[in-house]
């Protein structure tokens, strides 16, 4: 039941928010997100004690044998936690702002949260698909109404890209559904149906699913929607997009691709890893020469996601653990970065070009400290949360092929280059006419950034609970791989 609440609370709050006025939506959104955070923490403990108790199944469409089946596993519980934390952080950090038509703004954000949670908890393929789309539509409206100047074409591209991907996935779902023994959409039925297919069938089904997930992550060469969308979207929306929504693609691959089509995943893994690594190097190089702060972070995000995707297809326990941990940590870190970028942009009246910035450390020391810590966590410095995930992923990749690891490792070096460069250009140096008027963080912003920094250090120093949480999932996936390798 707790799992249903995770979807239901934001859904209802979202609908109510459309009817409220003044500060009502803002308060409601914050309360709802704190309530869901509470529920997700309780659900996490419940999962540890009785994993079965988080499952909930109800009849949905009897003609199709589609069920409303939700539940948590280690990965789902962790991503639900990430989602709820992300929304709390977003709502706290923008609490002092007023948005035009705020009832729709908060309402749509809450609906997106419901969709995201639906994706992370669904154990029914049709429900998963509905959640996948339900998360996309509010995001589209959020970006298009409250975004920057070029928002209309940019977000339209984003929508079309994702929609095409999900349609391909729909065909894959239909095909697998028709091959299940009991004609159902349940996860278990899909796993056994996928395993029973011929290798050729598995192969093209793999690509139908993979395109949908690759667009969402995004993976080279399907990434072109991403930097523009991140840049044009209002920053709270970008935080959700980059912190949580890209995880939908990684989650989809881990839940609905690897276990369902193990043979094809194993045989195409080298190609996918190569694409991911091209993405890492390519995006890192572009990030180095970017002078727009938002675009630089967008490209750095492509590089990080590329590493995670490569690690998923590296097919071993170490890399999988790394991915799962990194999914959470990357979400937290990038939300932190966006909060800081948003503060800078808001204070300086829309300036986000690094060439015009500089000398912020002397005017806004707290902001500068937070920026340094979060940036270094993003690079993966030891004792921050970024380290453990990257270390595990690289060890995993190393087991597959040394060259994969070597080239992907370039990404780390390059990321150090652009992140340090950014720190230098933004906060050090001489302050100029533009940056002279910057003021330091407000209490709300300090609170959310402090929470982020706490998470960075806690997970960085003591990652054991998180690794334990996801260990069940990695073992399950590992079994699926071994099965597939013996099949091959």
């Amino acid at each position, binding site marked *: 039941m707790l799992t249903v609440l995770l979807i239901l609370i934001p859904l209802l709050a979202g609908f109510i928010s459309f009817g409220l006025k003044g500060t009502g939506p803002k308060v409601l959104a914050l309360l709802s997100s704190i309530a869901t955070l509470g529920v997700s923490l309780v659900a996490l403990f419940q999962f540890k004690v009785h994993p079965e108790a988080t499952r909930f199944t109800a009849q949905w469409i009897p003609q199709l044998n589609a069920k409303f089946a939700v539940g948590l596993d280690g990965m789902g519980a962790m991503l639900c936690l990430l989602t709820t934390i992300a929304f709390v952080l977003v709502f706290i950090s923008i609490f002092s702002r007023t948005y035009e038509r705020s009832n729709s703004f908060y309402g749509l954000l809450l609906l997106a949260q419901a969709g995201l949670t639906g994706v992370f908890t669904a154990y029914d393929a049709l429900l998963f698909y509905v959640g996948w789309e339900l998360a996309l539509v509010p995001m589209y409206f959020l970006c298009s109404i409250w975004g920057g100047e070029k928002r209309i074409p940019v977000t339209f591209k984003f929508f079309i890209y994702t929609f095409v991907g999900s349609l391909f996935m729909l065909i894959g779902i239909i095909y697998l559904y*028709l091959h299940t023994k009991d004609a159902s959409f349940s996860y278990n039925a899909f796993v056994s149906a996928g395993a029973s297919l011929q290798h050729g069938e598995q192969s093209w089904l793999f690509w139908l699913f993979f395109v949908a997930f690759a667009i969402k992550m995004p993976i080279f060469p399907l990434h072109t929607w991403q930097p523009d969308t991140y840049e044009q979207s209002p920053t709270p929306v970008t935080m959700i997009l980059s912190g949580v929504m890209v995880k939908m693609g990684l989650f989809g691959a881990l839940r609905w691709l690897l276990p369902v089509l193990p043979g094809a995943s194993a045989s195409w893994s080298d190609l996918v890893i190569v694409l991911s690594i091209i993405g890492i190097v390519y995006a890192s190089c572009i990030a180095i020469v970017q002078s727009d702060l938002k675009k630089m972070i967008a490209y750095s995000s492509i590089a990080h996601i590329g590493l995670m995707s490569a690690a998923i297809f590296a097919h071993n326990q170490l890399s999988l653990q790394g991915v799962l941990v990194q999914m959470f940590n990357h979400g937290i870190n990038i939300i932190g970065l966006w909060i800081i970028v948003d503060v800078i942009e808001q204070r300086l009246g829309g300036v986000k070009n690094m060439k015009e910035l500089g000398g912020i450390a002397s005017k806004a020391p707290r902001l500068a400290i937070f920026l340094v810590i979060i940036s270094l966590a993003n690079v993966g410095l030891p004792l921050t949360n970024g380290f453990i995930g990257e270390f595990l992923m690289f060890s995993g990749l190393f087991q597959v092929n040394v060259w994969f690891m070597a080239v992907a490792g370039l990404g780390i070096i390059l990321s150090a280059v652009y992140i340090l460069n950014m720190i230098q250009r933004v906060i050090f140096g001489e302050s100029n006419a533009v940056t002279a008027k910057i003021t330091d963080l407000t209490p709300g912003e300090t609170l959310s950034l402090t929470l982020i920094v706490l998470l960075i250090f806690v997970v960085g120093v003591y990652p054991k609970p998180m690794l334990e949480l996801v260990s069940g999932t990695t073992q399950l996936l590992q079994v699926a791989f071994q099965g597939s390798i013996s099949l091959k």
Partner: protein
Amino acid sequence: MNALLSTAISGVILMFVGLFAKNKQSIKYFAIAALIVAFAANFIDLRYVLKMGPYTAYASMIKVTLFTTLFNAVILGCTLVYFLLTGSGFEKVGDEVAEYFALQFFILSGIMLATSFNNLLILFLAIEIISIPQYILAGSDKYNLKSNEASLKYFLMGAFSTGILLMGIALIYGGCGSFDLYKLGLGGISMSPLTLSGVLLIVFSLSFKVSAAPFHFWTPDVYDGSPTVFTAFMATVVKAGGFIAFIRLFQIAFQGGIVNQQWTLVLEIITACTLIIGNITAVYQQSVKRMLAYSSIAQAGFMLFSLLAFNLRAQQGILLYAAAYSLATIGAFSVLLKLKDYTFDGFNGLARKQPLLAFAMTIFLFSLAGIPLTGGFFAKYFVLTAAVQQGGMFWLVIVAIICAAISVYYYFKVIIAMYFKTGEPEVETPSGAYKAALILTVALVILLGIFPNLLLQFMK
């Protein structure tokens, strides 16, 4: 059968009501009441069929099955929504309001025939009863040149295609020696050249009626030229009626399992053409009304899938598709009727001026585009599943998917105009009754998108 009689009689009565009614509003209420009577009559049929099984009537010229009554219910329900949403728009077309309603009841009785025919002659009658009132409705805006053109064009092309239909029926009779659907036995392995050409001629003629490419050229001009209120009816309920005739003919006559490759290939090509031409041409339209005309061609392409697949899912699919597509298109046209300017720019800024209209339009367009949680998603889902299950036409499914993605482009252009652009649209203030009907329609579209089983539960 009750529904057939009730709609035909209501049509006749409505013609006389026009003579005596002082008030145009009362005619509308009378028509709505007559429709509710027809709906109730159909409900009696439905209960009877559920209990006793299918039955034949009139020397087995007509056979009423469960699917017949269900489809009638969808048609009558959509017409009811149509009357509620656009009933007051009839007065703006001309003075003969009662006649317009009467003609639409005749069309309905034709559709009731099309859902229950058991004999090729009745098929012919049904198609003609559906078509002739439409020629009149298309030209009902008598002093408008475009309306006259639409009527003439439709009449000439329609008469020609009826001739082809008749020719096809004659050839099939020559080949099989019967008009009775159940005795045609076209499901065998081989088919004589005479019968095959008959089947192809019928396919062409019925493709014309449902505006499938390459027989679609009349559609945009006729839909654009006709008064918008009647376009809404023609593009939805009438089109669904044409489809049901098509499907009934093939599902019964080709019973026996083996589907003849020769004509399925033709039908597959027609489907692909309809999808591609409909969608790509819709992209280039400047007027929303014309865009909806092309979108109706594109949607016909999806409905054709239910013809190609011979399984239960296809039947469920067409039922759901007819309902979801008709509701959404009727709703979209009713919003269009409130606007002065039919171009995309005419919608600029509608969300600020009339949030309810814009919201309803968005839901209707979502449904047409097939976004989940609207009826259109499950409609597409069912027909595509039917096609995948049938096998052998995976390429067509991929074409359909790509076309569905293209359709997002032109449907969303309206949403972009309404929500993200600024402007001062000239819009008529909607009445309370209209708003209530609009909310009802939106609720139906969303309900079908969450619980399609509400409609499908009757099908075994």
